């Protein structure tokens, strides 16, 4: 893809419309799978029939036990069309738009978005992606060419490739922020790296532009937003203030307040200052503003009492991210859930620990994949799996 042209300042910035967002509650199973980068359809517990569109009752045997399961996503494209006239303003700005009918090997016939190049008769792999309304959508990808379709106009509506986008990484003091900056640079982004309290020594990241940014300081945040808010496409909030300590053991709130500033108030400040501009540019040109990434502890899901106050701050941050997801739409809010980092604060924590560089790579991949939630590293994946199995059991496990 050609690097984005500079925008014509005399033209009105295209408003950020969203595709039709209405779905039944049942259909949100596709949204959930897409948010996590999975592929799931309902399968009847009685007759094993794979269902689509999402149902409440099996279309084969009337059984009411339909569970979302990973099913083989392959199929054949049996019909296709290029929509040139549409009732919806979002799609009207994006015509011609291709859709097609895929006969899945697993049974159902699925209407799906099509990238350029895939043709009738082709074998395809269906994927579930989040569209700009944040809803799960079926896309049919060519089986023969599984390579990246990051430059395909349809796929660009589903994903957030950092290439040729301008990225703010909030915390250049932390190894995570530094490695995210490096990963974004390697992915072809331009990077601004925030550094708080520049009176303290810090190491700049080569290629990234260091800017003063202290999320705990309203004035600093507003100055950053005023200077850079109108030209950012991705914000990566890497603000981590990781401190061990249970609630009773600490005995005071001083550290907890700083944790809440770093995890909750700071990102809220930044979102309030920069979010409106980001959202307003969500359809600006070929590389519109697209994503807000949070790095969160997986113990946001269930408290790890030995890091009890920190876990609570992460729960606040997780809840904030959910609110932002609604407020910022069509900007995608991506949460990278992590276990212990391989850093000085987890010195006594046994491995496996997550290398900041591995986290950075996972964030870039999550943006390219267009997911909304990614658990990075063995511990985070383990905890997330336990959480999804039974939150109460996980709570008791962590408290033992």
């Amino acid at each position: 893809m050609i690097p984005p042209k500079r925008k014509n300042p005399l033209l009105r910035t295209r408003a950020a419309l969203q595709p039709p967002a209405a779905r039944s509650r049942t259909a949100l199973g596709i949204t959930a799978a897409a948010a996590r980068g999975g592929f799931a359809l309902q399968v009847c517990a009685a007759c094993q029939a794979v269902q689509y569109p999402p149902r409440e009752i099996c279309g084969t045997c009337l059984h009411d036990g339909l569970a979302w399961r990973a099913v083989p996503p392959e199929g054949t494209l049996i019909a296709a069309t290029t929509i040139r006239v549409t009732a919806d303003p979002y799609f009207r700005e994006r015509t011609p738009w291709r859709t097609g009918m895929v006969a899945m090997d697993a049974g159902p016939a699925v209407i799906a978005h099509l990238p350029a190049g895939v043709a009738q008769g082709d074998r395809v792999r269906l994927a579930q992606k989040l569209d700009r309304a944040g809803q799960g959508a079926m896309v049919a990808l060519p089986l023969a060419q599984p390579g990246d379709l990051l430059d395909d106009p349809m796929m660009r509506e589903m994903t957030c490739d950092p290439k040729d986008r301008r990225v703010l990484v909030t915390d250049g003091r932390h190894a995570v922020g530094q490695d995210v900056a490096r990963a974004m640079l390697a992915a072809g982004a331009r990077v601004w790296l925030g550094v708080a309290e520049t009176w303290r020594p810090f190491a700049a990241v080569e290629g990234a532009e260091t800017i003063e940014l202290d999320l705990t300081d309203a004035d600093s945040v507003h100055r950053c937003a005023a200077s850079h808010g109108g030209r950012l496409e991705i914000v990566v909030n890497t603000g981590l203030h990781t401190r061990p300590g249970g609630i009773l053991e600490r005995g005071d709130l001083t550290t907890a307040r700083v944790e809440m500033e770093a995890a909750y108030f700071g990102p809220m400040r930044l979102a309030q200052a920069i979010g409106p501009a980001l959202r307003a540019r969500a359809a600006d040109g070929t590389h519109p503003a697209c994503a807000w990434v949070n790095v969160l502890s997986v113990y946001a899901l269930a408290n790890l009492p030995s890091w009890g106050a920190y876990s609570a701050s992460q729960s606040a941050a997780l809840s904030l991210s959910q609110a932002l997801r609604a407020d910022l739409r069509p900007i995608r809010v991506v949460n990278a859930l992590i276990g212990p980092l391989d850093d000085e604060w987890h010195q006594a924590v046994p491995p496996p620990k997550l290398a900041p560089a591995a986290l950075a790579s996972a964030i870039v991949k999550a943006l390219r994949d267009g997911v909304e939630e990614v658990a990075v590293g063995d511990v985070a994946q383990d905890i997330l799996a336990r959480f999804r199995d039974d939150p109460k059991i996980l709570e008791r496990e962590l408290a033992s």
Partner: protein
Amino acid sequence: MSSPTPTSSLADFAADLVSGRITVIDLTQTLSADFPTIALPPEFGQCAPFRLEEISRYDARGPAWYWNNFSCGEHTGTHYDAPIHWVSGKDFPNNTVDTIPADKFIAPAVVIDCSRETAANHDFVLTRSVLEAWEAAHGPIPAGCWVLLRTDWSKRSGAAYANMKEDGAHTPGPDPEAVRFLVEERDVLGFGTETIGTDAGQAHHFTPPYPAHFYMHGKGRYGLQCLSNLDKLPATGAVIVSPPLKIQGGSGSPLRVLALVAS
């Protein structure tokens, strides 16, 4: 009861203020979010930097008024140290900012100008011999006065002000002997500096560590730090007005420090 009659000298003072024969000099750094604070190892509790959050500004949050909430540590910006700040001063009566007698908040000051030495050596140490040399020139340091160390450090800002290296901050300050001399032999009211603390950046390595804190507060004396404009003060003759906020049980507070100087 009749009101006390103002003394003629107070009337003269007021007249001198109005006429400009006495100049008021602001020794205070502006409280702002980016002003450096003391940097301790991160496993310790930290002094909160100054923060301002707007409540309203003639808008929907308050149509006709502008105001802010602010937050900070007691030892943020230009601030006052009460004796209770240090473990050596924890048991004195009236050792907190709310109980220190009000007459301690207005006092004369002497200014020890070490700006030339500090320019050459960031780790300049104020020694007894430096103080004695000053006394040789200006006379003995009087009891009950502030001793202010002029280094012109307040002309720096940001990283140059904090001057943090891998082995910590490098800023000037007194050695233990100098502090003991001031407290025990000269009975001063307190010690004031232009740097983030009353002690030198490397004072952790002195014995005892942080002697200005240890001895000053250990004798119930006070500290002022992050002062500015000391270069505008005479070596002797200035009067310092430095009342801290009346924080219940407080160990210190940000404050406005004013110097009265004969024009």
